[in-house]
């Protein structure tokens, strides 16, 4: 019976039906003998009761999106954001016991909305940036790289090195200035106008100590780090960058990635 009840409740969500109503009754006193004092009126009926739960569930999911995507809320206003958040919450179930992990596909969902590309083309990219910031905030710290060991490696071993990026690390690019948009949307930021013509952003997000940072990268370094994220070796990543770009100062770039704290370890691929 318990299994059946819970399955029907879950199925109702997927199929947008109300089969669950058959398991619940009207006010408590209809069924219970121990009502005391005698009721003046019957309490909540089945339809009202179920509706309270369903609304609370969707509202709870939608609310968690407002916590993860505060800049998006600011950009379009709470009313408009809530409408999108409710749509998402109805269509994307949560599979984790913690709401901290919810909303991971929100940017893709925004991209699937037909008029988005014309009306607010940068909006899904801002959401992607906010998700990285959110995830970085809760990521583990990682450890420090053993540079002594790296520097000891022979050049041919070094070319087979795969760098491990710090657990909070993430990359996002946009043809719009999403970092600037994010910055002017922070509490206490100056009242500034952002022009979309400021151009593309190639960004890394990571946490340094307790602070989540958004760093602007060159297009070359962005590609290089992206290849590192995929687990490519140093020489594979380098040739991939040189396929796209004419020049790449890789020594300085890797040093920059180290200085910023992007890299926390490495291993040599056989």
């Amino acid at each position, binding site marked *: *019976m*318990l*299994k059946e*009840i*819970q*399955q029907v*409740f*879950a*199925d109702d*969500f997927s199929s947008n039906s109300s089969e669950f109503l058959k*398991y*619940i*009754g*009207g*006010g*408590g*006193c*209809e*069924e*219970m003998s*121990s*009502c*005391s*004092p005698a*009721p003046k*009126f*019957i*309490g*909540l009926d*089945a339809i*009202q*009761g*179920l509706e*309270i*739960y369903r609304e*609370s*569930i969707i509202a*709870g*999911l939608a609310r*968690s999106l407002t916590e993860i995507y505060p800049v998006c809320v600011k950009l379009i206003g709470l009313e408009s954001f809530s409408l999108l958040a409710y749509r998402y919450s109805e269509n994307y*179930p*949560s*599979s*984790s*016991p*913690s*709401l*901290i992990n919810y909303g991971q596909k929100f940017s893709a969902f925004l991209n699937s909305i037909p008029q988005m590309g014309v009306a607010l083309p940068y909006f899904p990219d801002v959401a992607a940036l906010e998700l990285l910031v959110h995830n970085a*905030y*809760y*990521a*583990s*710290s990682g450890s420090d790289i053993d540079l002594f060991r790296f520097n000891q490696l022979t050049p041919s071993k070094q070319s087979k090195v795969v760098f491990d990026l710090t*657990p*909070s690390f993430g990359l996002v690019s946009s043809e719009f200035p999403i970092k600037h948009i994010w910055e002017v949307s922070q509490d206490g930021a100056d009242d500034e106008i952002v022009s979309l013509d400021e151009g593309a952003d190639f960004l890394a997000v990571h*946490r340094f100590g*307790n602070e989540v940072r958004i760093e602007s990268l060159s297009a070359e370094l962005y590609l290089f780090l992206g290849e590192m994220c995929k687990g490519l070796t140093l020489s594979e990543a380098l040739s991939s960058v040189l396929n796209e770009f004419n020049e790449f100062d890789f020594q300085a770039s890797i040093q920059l990635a180290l200085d910023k704290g992007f890299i926390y370890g490495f291993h040599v691929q056989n």
Partner: protein
Amino acid sequence: MSISGKSSFKKSKIQGVGIGLRSCHYQSIIQHKPRIPWFEVISDNYMIEGGPELNYLESIRNDYPIVMHGVGMSVGSVDDLNMDYLGKLRSLKERFEPAWISDHLCWVSADKRYFHDLLPLPYTQESIDHVAKRVQRVQNVLGERILLENVSNYMTYKANEMTEWEFLSNVAEAADCNILLDINNVYVSSYNHKFDPFLYLNEIPVNRVKQFHLAGYQDKGLYLFDSHSEKVKPPVWDLYEFAVTKFGSIPTLIEWDDDIPSLSDLLTEANKASKIIWK
């Protein structure tokens, strides 16, 4: 980390009226170290890999005893127990040494889907057996008795075989766990389902109740909603006074999760409860 088995934190005794730890108050707590006997911490918010939240909790734990209260255990669900969740809870227990751990007598997930809402169980023997079995497994993993809280309730199953208070008492007995009695939830459910909240309290076994919750509801006309967004309402204070006479000076928590006020406003609310508990 405690290695000798002895607590690495000085303070662990839970007494009097505590408040829920919420991140908007971190700074103020760390800076001013207000006189608050203990905090209740939402365990789920710290089941994370790293970052500032855990540092804040550690810093606050150094100055205050805590209890841990969760929303994701889903003891009433027929899905498999989430061992990953329990493992994380155990790690938190080992790191932060809460005086006890609680969750709700409800289900929050079904068919591997989490609703993040406290859904009531039908009050049946089948539910009692199911929950008791799962709570025993949880208690084995954690190595201690947990507290289960009564939830606010807005619907009545046709399959019910008993009252809510009989169900809660029977589960605690069968699972050999303790009870976190939410006085506001008793009142909200009693209003919504038209039963006598005093009768409810009278039927709960005294030796199982280890903590009270107090919170504010919203009057929606037809029903009361457990919003945790306002002050504790007069009828709940009355019920609380009765609970203190029956169960004794049980540690009590003021819950406030939405439109969270300043720390000093919360303390004013806590002082009202202190006056009752230490009368």
